[in-house]
């Protein structure tokens, strides 16, 4: 069956722009952890200085030993110094890692906070359309995947820009020819890598993407396995998977074979530097060449520069090793940005509800009335020429509606007619595209609505904790008596009394599994305890059999006798109990 496009090059190209955006974002994030990143880099550089000192001491000792045949007493002092250098280097390694961790810790916390705020700002209208399982991995796994980038990669990048220069500066006065060898081979590495094509970086990226793509293809087929089996195509698809894996491998290896030339280049220069230095100083010591300072070279100088030759390339090689941290971080940044970037779409769409459009005085007055001025007169609700448009699709058109305090209203209409959208507007989860929704004379915001409206959705959330905690979600400080009353009134008590621990029974994931009807009653208890003037219920009788339905409706009648009540439903048993009916048809009100 399907033969996917295995042309990686094309795929990489289309991904490049996004990748650059993600890389830029990562860089911007690192500003928050500038200090630990610099300190970690500093520890790494100090370690490098230790390497230089170590090379100097070692070559001094070997010179004394081999050429000067010094007695061992002479060697004790440099030996002890060497031991000191060793200890300092070990401490540097420790510091670099622990301080590097702090860089990532800071950023991880900050990002989790930002995501959490963002989820709330996007509201349920957004998360409803996403796989919540996938969404939940973002603050955990994806944020975690950034760690190595900040704790290892960035400090290393800094080290690479400093340490080789320091080494050249140290070597120059001792042997300028070797200094020139370093100077030439060092910067040549990036140049040749670029010439070879893409560099070690790009090899890693290609490999990473190829893996991800093949994994994605495999996952796609795995997820559709049941469908494939229904059509009798499962075994045929196995051939495809094998064929495509081969195809992928061949094409990716064709790219990698070129890209790996860059690791060879890195290896080549570091090997050649060692070989060149060894042969040059060796021949110099033999007096075989006259070029540069070769003639006057001592063994200790020769050994010193030889020891530094491989170390000169070490930071760069380490950076190449850490490169997959960057590739992983970019993939994670893509997912995280996917959420955080929702921002702009939302501000423009929800703008008029969340951003203050009123004057400062109005705003202050509103604040006043939220915080101090209690509402005695029950609030009314007003829809004023409200349109709601998602992209091309107009869901609500010119809604004009007034709901007075104390009214009992059924909101009906086919599914897809806009009932849920209307309720979302009322709750401030979304903002109208045109027009205004007023509650007690004020434009609705999510916070404003939350203070006046108790709402029971179709799928009420059950949270990790006890039944009691779940009822008291709106008012964690509610008195025991109030909670018991709410449990009694809503019918939660009926089943909680059967449970060994009553209201203290743990529910939610890993806890006692509540049935649909029980969750419904729990949600009613919440609404009751909240004791607001307006109650909105969304399809409260869906998923219930006739017996529990009557029970529930009686409870609703009793609980919310004095409130404004709006129930969205297409259940005749519900509609007949309510005094007013509002009908939505393809986004318009019909009476």
């Amino acid at each position, binding site marked *: *069956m399907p033969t996917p496009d295995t042309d990686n090059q094309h795929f990489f190209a289309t991904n490049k722009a996004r990748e650059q955006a993600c890389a830029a974002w990562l860089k911007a994030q690192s500003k928050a952890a500038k200090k630990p990143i610099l300190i970690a880099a500093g520890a790494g550089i100090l370690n490098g200085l230790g390497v230089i000192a170590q090379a100097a001491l070692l070559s001094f000792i070997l010179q004394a030993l081999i050429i000067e045949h010094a007695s061992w007493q002479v060697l004790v002092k440099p030996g002890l110094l*060497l031991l000191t250098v060793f200890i300092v280097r070990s401490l540097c390694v420790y510091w670099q*890692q622990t301080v590097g961790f702090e860089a990532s810790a800071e950023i991880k916390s900050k990002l989790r906070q930002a995501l959490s705020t963002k989820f709330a700002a996007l509201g349920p209208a957004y998360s409803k359309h996403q796989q919540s399982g996938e969404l939940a991995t973002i603050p955990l796994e994806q944020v975690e995947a950034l760690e190595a980038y900040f704790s290892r990669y960035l400090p290393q990048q800094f080290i690479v820009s400093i340490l080789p220069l320091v080494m050249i500066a140290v070597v120059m006065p001792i042997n300028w020819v070797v200094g020139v060898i370093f100077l030439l081979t060092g910067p040549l590495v990036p140049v040749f890598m670029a010439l070879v094509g893409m560099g070690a970086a790009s090899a890693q990226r290609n490999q990473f993407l190829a893996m991800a793509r093949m*994994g994605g293809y495999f996952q796609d087929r795995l997820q559709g396995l049941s469908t494939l089996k229904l059509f009798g195509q499962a075994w045929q698809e196995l051939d495809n998977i094998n064929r495509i894996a081969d195809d992928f491998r061949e094409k990716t290896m064709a790219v990698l074979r070129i890209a790996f030339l860059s690791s060879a280049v890195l290896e080549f220069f570091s090997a050649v530097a*060692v070989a060149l230095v*060894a042969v040059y100083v*060796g021949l110099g010591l033999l007096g075989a060449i006259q070029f540069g300072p070769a003639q006057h070279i001592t063994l200790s100088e020769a050994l010193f520069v030889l020891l530094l030759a491989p170390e000169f390339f070490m930071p760069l090689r380490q950076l190449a090793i850490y490169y997959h941290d960057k590739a992983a971080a970019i993939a994670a940044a893509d997912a995280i940005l996917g959420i955080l970037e929702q921002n702009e779409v939302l501000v423009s769409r929800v703008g008029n509800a969340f951003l203050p459009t009123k004057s400062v005085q109005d705003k202050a007055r509103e604040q006043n009335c939220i915080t101090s001025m209690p509402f005695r007169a029950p609030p009314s609700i007003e829809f004023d020429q409200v349109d709601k448009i998602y992209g091309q699709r107009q869901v609500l058109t010119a809604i004009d509606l007034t709901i007075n305090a104390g009214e009992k209203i059924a909101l009906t209409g086919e599914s897809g007619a806009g009932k849920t959208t209307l309720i979302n507007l009322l709750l401030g989860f979304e903002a109208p595209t045109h027009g205004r929704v007023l509650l007690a004379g004020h434009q609705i915001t999510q916070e404003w609505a939350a203070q006046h*409206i108790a709402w029971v959705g179709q799928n009420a959330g059950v949270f990790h904790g006890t039944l009691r905690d779940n009822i008291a979600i709106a008012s964690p400080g509610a008195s025991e008596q109030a909670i018991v009353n709410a449990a009694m009134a809503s019918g939660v008590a009926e089943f909680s009394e059967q449970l060994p621990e009553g209201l203290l029974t743990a529910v939610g994931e890993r806890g006692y599994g509540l049935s649909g009807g029980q969750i419904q009653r729990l949600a009613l208890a919440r609404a009751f305890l909240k004791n607001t003037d307006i109650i909105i219920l969304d399809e409260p009788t869906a998923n219930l059999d006739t017996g529990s339905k009557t029970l529930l409706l009686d409870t609703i009648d009793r609980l919310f006798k004095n409130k404004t009540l709006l129930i969205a439903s297409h259940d005749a048993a519900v509609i007949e109990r309510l005094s007013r009916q509002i009908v939505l048809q393809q986004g318009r009100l019909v009476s």
Partner: protein
Amino acid sequence: MKDLWFFFTLFKPQRFWLTSGLLLSLLTTVAGIALLTLSGWFISSCAIAGSVITFNFMLPAAQIRALAIIRTLGRYGERVVTHEATFRALADIRSWLFQQLIPLAPGRLSTLRSGDVLSRLTADVDALDALYLRLVAPVSIAAFGMLGVALFLGIYSWQISLVTLVVLLIAAVWVPWLFNRLGQMHAERLLVLSSNFRIRQLELLQGLADLLAYQAYERFADVLAEVSTRMIATQRQNNRLTAISSALTLLLGQIALLIALTVAALAVVEGSLTGADAALVIFCVLAAFELVTPLPQAMQMLGKTQKAAQRIRQIAEMSPTVVQENPWLDLPDGCDLRLDQVSFRYNPQQNWLLDNISLDIPHGSKLAIVGPSGSGKTTLLHLLMRFIDPVLGDIQLAGQPIKQLDPDALLTRFGVLSQRSQLFAATIKENLLIAKPDANPLELDAAINAAGLQTFVQQLPDGINTWVGESGVKVSGGEARRIALARLYLKNAPILILDEPTEGLDSHTENEVFNALAKFSVDKTVIMVTHRSAGLGLVDEIYQLQQGRLLTVTHSNNQ
């Protein structure tokens, strides 16, 4: 370890590539060590000799150049070959896994929260690439390299050889082992904390509307932040251990160097070791520590890779939900279905989900089963298609118990339309061809028309050859359902299973889907499951499933 060993055996067909990769890596590493060692010796010898007359510099100089070239070429070859090996081995594992999962679909897979499980499974397979590249390769190179270095040093001084070997062994085996052990407590706590975080985050997202409406979001988010803080604190402790172990590994290497230096110095003074050989030994010890530096990381990979391997095996080795009876009987000709006193529950502690249900469904009959969600409607459909077997009772196709039939052949009789329309990352055409691989263009056109897809397809850039699914054109829920409908048309199976076929569609699309179904199902059996009233015009009989029993029977008059 048993799980990892299991995957090693799966790697067997690629042993040529795998061992070649290892040999090349070993060659490269050894060449690197030899290069530095030889250079150190060469320089010292030159210094001692002091002139070209007493020292033949040509050979070692040539050897140094040769080693530099070997190291460069070896590195390149090692990169290419190890990656070739990894890609091949992973392809083998994917293929093996897919084969293992085929018998588990759809019965067993549907009992898992399949989306999550399958995506984790894919990630786990990818994680196995570390098994070779970052675990087996560095460990075996370290083992062979250490042995080689110890033997080589032994030529010059057995004391230095012994000291180096012991310290290398401590650094390679004892340090990673010790710190892994010390970190175990943190690792376990971290596991608990992150699963806690995941659950709470999920709750927060799923209950977002309630939390916002009840002004409780901030409180819950604070709890989550608290879990995150504790997670980071645990990671900090763990990281500290890792840092200590890296520092210790470095220190060990340098202590070995210091001891080697002391022993060599004494030997030189004593006269049992020449000056040049002393330089050689010191440079060799210095370079040898390149062997153990990747090992702490390999040890960290071990735990992760082990977990991945374990999860893959757990899923791949589940037993299918239906027991196959060999040999199978051929599929009978008729299409009458019959449920004979069928009872079902998922486990013996539960009440019966379906309780003693008997029902005749002659070919061409059209019925709907309604009832609240969770009442067992979908389970009933799964029983009919033998995704699962009843606990009691018997299901027959044309008088033949379906248990005796080839399960794959049985599925050719059923066409399914459900609320999940699986689209593959492929072109629309290829997505349709799943239903009938040999369909000709005329048949495809007919299917597209029947499903009401013609306008949608016409406005696509490449028409029927447009890529859909991941990294393709976005397809709405309604369009995806129509593509599934076109597949149903192409397959042209005699029994149609409609499982909430229009769930999640707007009313306009819903009507169109039902109209298309009505036209197409004239001479077919229709078994529809729904909890809504829409579409009931399609059927003649309506059954209500409640508390495991088929209760009310309504004869609809084709309203």
